[in-house]
């Protein structure tokens, strides 16, 4: 292993310490990641845009401040100089933002998302923008208009979705940290299938300003990382109130980093959700889940069982609320003000026909499917039966959570029912694809926070399994407290991070490149 390879394998927390101690420079770190991207992203395709010049400039600025010392150096954020990748659903000045769609190809935002402003304020070099299912609609990143991302554990397999790009970038050591967005599991499910950590904060915990909306009442930006502590560090940067987002919580942010550092589960009640394991879950997933329960028990936690009977309606209700909101949120993409504009091939050039031609050409099938579903669900005469009923289910799910959290401090389940499936396997079966999110959707429906961390490899396929922790709204700190304990117990068992077991993408480059071509097209 070269020195640079050692750099890219460090956690964000370790990088931060070495940067602060001036053992390494931010330019070295950033360059190491840019080199890694150049070396492996041809196979992984985690990035849609690489932002090398700006990232190096920010890194150089951090190094200069540190070298000069004094108050400015003292005031540097703990993550200053630690690079990060940003899901291409989040708008950035100076880089394109596509949302994974042809309809925004070449569009540059005139403003920064609030979370991006906060990354800039912390002087974190932004490595680039990561791939996603178009407008975050999908569970495999195969719905990206710019081609799929490949799972670093097996390039023939999906990296999860919609945030497959962010998860794969972190898993492939192309970035130490990334931002994702989670509407029904788009941070946590990719985390599970790539052996990384992903957190969906409490709804309102992180500003959505500048995240291109899919379903406003469900969307949430969150951290993607290789360790629980790293997610806490990033969450601390991006979280907290934003006056530009009315749904942003006014509460001051808890000390999440402290929670991750002082993890402890002794005397804690951890609830297994009866409805979220067992039937329909892959045996290897179930085995790793049970192992985690044993480890937590051994660390002093009390394992209890809770029932959330209305969770069985969550998926159905989600697929009414999400497309309904999406159909309205995506109406703005019409070719009038920005992005793609397509003229009808024949017939009169009326504005309606230009909008129609633009949307027909610019949106992919999954986006169209959801726009049509949502438009139908909101139609007069159907609203009460569909959108109205789905909102009632949402209330029932919230009540299930309320009842469950009376019996348990945190809840636990597998993050996804299976390990990563093959690229193309479920592309033509939307319902099978939607079932991937069965365990992650309830948290979005209720607005509660969730964290996914690696739980080991499934016996039957040797692929990563994710363990999901859920906490009551505004109690994100509990996730970090429990997650950090479980992570350290598991790593002790494995003898190091799970990602140490992932294939080295450079060593098997020829074979991987060949298989990736075979698998995806």
């Amino acid at each position, binding site marked *: 292993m070269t020195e640079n390879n050692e750099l890219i394998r460090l956690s964000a927390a370790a990088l931060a310490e070495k940067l602060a101690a001036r053992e390494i420079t931010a330019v070295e770190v950033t360059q190491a990641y840019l080199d890694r991207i150049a070396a492996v992203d041809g196979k992984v395709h985690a990035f849609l845009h690489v932002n090398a010049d700006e990232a190096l400039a920010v890194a150089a600025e951090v190094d200069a401040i540190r070298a000069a010392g004094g108050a400015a150096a003292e005031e540097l954020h703990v993550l200053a100089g630690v690079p990060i990748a940003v899901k291409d659903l989040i708008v950035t000045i100076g880089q394109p933002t596509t949302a994974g769609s042809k309809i925004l190809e070449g569009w540059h935002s005139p403003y920064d998302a609030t979370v991006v402003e906060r990354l800039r304020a912390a002087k974190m070099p932004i490595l680039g923008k990561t791939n996603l299912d178009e407008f975050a609609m999908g569970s495999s990143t195969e719905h990206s208009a710019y081609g799929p991302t490949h799972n670093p554990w097996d390039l023939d397999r999906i990296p999860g979705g919609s945030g497959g790009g962010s998860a794969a970038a972190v898993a492939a050591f192309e970035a130490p940290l990334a931002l994702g967005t989670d509407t029904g599991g788009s941070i946590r499910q990719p985390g599970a299938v790539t052996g990384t950590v992903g957190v969906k904060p409490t709804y309102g915990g992180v500003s959505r300003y500048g995240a291109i909306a899919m379903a406003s009442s469900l969307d949430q930006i969150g951290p993607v990382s290789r360790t629980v502590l790293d997610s806490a560090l990033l969450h601390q940067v991006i979280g907290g109130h934003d006056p530009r987002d009315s*749904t942003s919580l006014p509460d001051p942010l808890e000390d999440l980093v402290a929670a991750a550092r002082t993890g402890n589960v002794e005397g804690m009640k951890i609830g297994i959700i009866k409805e979220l394991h067992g039937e329909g879950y892959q045996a290897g997933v179930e085995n790793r889940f049970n192992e985690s329960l044993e480890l937590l028990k051994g660390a002093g936690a009390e394992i209890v069982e809770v029932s959330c009977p209305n969770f069985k309606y969550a998926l159905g209700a989600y697929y009414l609320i999400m497309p309904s909101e999406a*159909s309205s949120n995506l109406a703005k993409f019409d070719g009038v003000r920005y992005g793609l504009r397509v003229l009808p091939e024949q017939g009169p050039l009326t504005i309606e026909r230009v909008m129609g031609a633009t949307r027909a050409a610019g949106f992919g099938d999954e986006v169209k499917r959801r726009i049509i579903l949502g438009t139908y669900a909101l139609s007069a005469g159907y609203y009460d039966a569909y959108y109205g009923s789905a909102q009632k289910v949402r209330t029932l799910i919230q009540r299930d959570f309320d009842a469950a959290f009376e019996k348990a401090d945190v809840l636990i389940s597998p993050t996804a029912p299976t390990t990563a499936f093959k690229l193309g396997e479920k592309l033509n079966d939307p319902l099978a694809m939607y079932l991937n999110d069965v365990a992650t959707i309830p948290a979005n429906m209720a607005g509660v926070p969730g964290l996914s961390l690696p739980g080991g490899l499934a016996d039957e396929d040797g692929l990563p399994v994710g363990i999901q922790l859920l906490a009551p709204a505004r109690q994100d700190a509990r996730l970090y407290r429990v997650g950090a304990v479980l992570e350290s117990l598991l790593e002790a068992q494995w003898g190091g991070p799970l990602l140490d077991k992932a294939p080295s993408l450079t060593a098997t480059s020829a074979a991987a490149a060949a298989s990736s071509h075979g698998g995806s097209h």
Partner: protein
Amino acid sequence: MTDATLSFEEAMDKYDPVLGFEVHVELNTKTKMFSSAPNVFGDEPNTNVNEVDLGMPGVLPVVNKTAIESSIKIGLALNCKIAEKCRFARKNYFYPDTPKNFQTSQYDEPIAYDGYLDIELSDGTVFRVEIERAHMEEDAGKLTHMGGATGRIQGADYSLVDYNRSGVPLVEIVTKPIEGAGSRAPELAKAYVAAVREIVKNLGVSDAKMERGNVRCDANVSLRPHGRERFGIRSETKNVNSLRAVEHAVRYEIQRHAAVLDSGEPVIQETRHWHEDTRTTTSGRAKSDADDYRYFPEPDLVPITASREWVEELRATLPEPPAARRKRLQADWGYSDLEFRDVVNAGVMDEIEETIAAGATATVARKWWMGEIVGRAKNADVDPGQLGVNPATIVELNKMVEDGKINNKMASEVLDGVLAGEGTPAEIVGKRGLAVVSDDGPLLEAIDAALAAQPGVADKIRGGKIQAIGAIVGAVMKATRGQADAGRVKELILERLGVEG
């Protein structure tokens, strides 16, 4: 194609009108309803906008608190109940003046509801108009269709869009169906819109200039045979933007509906466009109750809560109600009941108040507005306040008369000049050479000439018949083209002839 109409009298003979109004009030907040961009319309297009007004990807709305306060004040002034909790909804439709392709508007949860407004008609009759709701929404951008003959989108080569108006806060005030107005319907329509305008102006929540679209009225009219309870089918005449036009539009639609019903055809439920030039309406878009806007609660905004304490605080800041204000103004100004009612009916009460505030006496202000301006406005077919006379002009003109610089006849001429855009009164007096001749030299010359031309009259005056002086004064005024001060001329004639006045 012009529609057939019945005479108003015949229409009233046969049918009973039912009215309904939707009045849109643009609030004069500093910033827009959901963004921090300036709420200023009319600047260079697309300059008072930010990413939110343009519907850029990723943006979110934030409600303007001042707009909520203004809306609550309007609700209170309309005797409405104020919702403790209410929400915005999305009204989804594709049109390029709406950047998000949905309008954020209140739908089934208005901030104010169940109110009323007592409207005083010209003869003092009071008519109660019930208010269904007053709700908040955002304005759309402004489209200008280029290349077509009519300025409409049909036939245009291309359209320009100005998003400066996009997101301007609006309050839409919706009445319940107004029954029982009978032949007073057109007058009631005008008086109702005037009352709403007066309220929002006095509240200070809107600039309330109809000619600028600050207050816009959509007028619904339907007819039913006398004695029938069920309403007829209505038309909605859009954007009737002056008080006189409201009256005319309602009258016209009553006459048109009556002709349609008389012919045995059903009235079509549709939007009508008002044409000020022909004082007629033409068919716009067919509108049915089945228009599907796929309303749903705006998920990007949290519900608005109006605590009772806050509502009471706002209530305490309300200015005096219009009826009390009228009583006070009449007493302050010392007008008789008849004089005051004439002023109110002519629609110049506010203008007189402003003129007095600018330094005129109540008598002078009334003389100018009622004597000079109302007549001109009628001839120009505009509301008096829209004629373009500002209070400072009146004060300046009046001072010139009082100082003897010009006489009343000249002042009227100068006013015409001001309205024609020739400049300030002083400039016009200068340009037109309109000064009362006060230098005795030229006057004495003219007097001597007149006395020499009419020696007989001069003798009569010398003989004590002073009333004969009129003939000489007349000749002098003629010679000086009316620029002499008649009083001074009289004095000089007597002096010249050595007669004691």
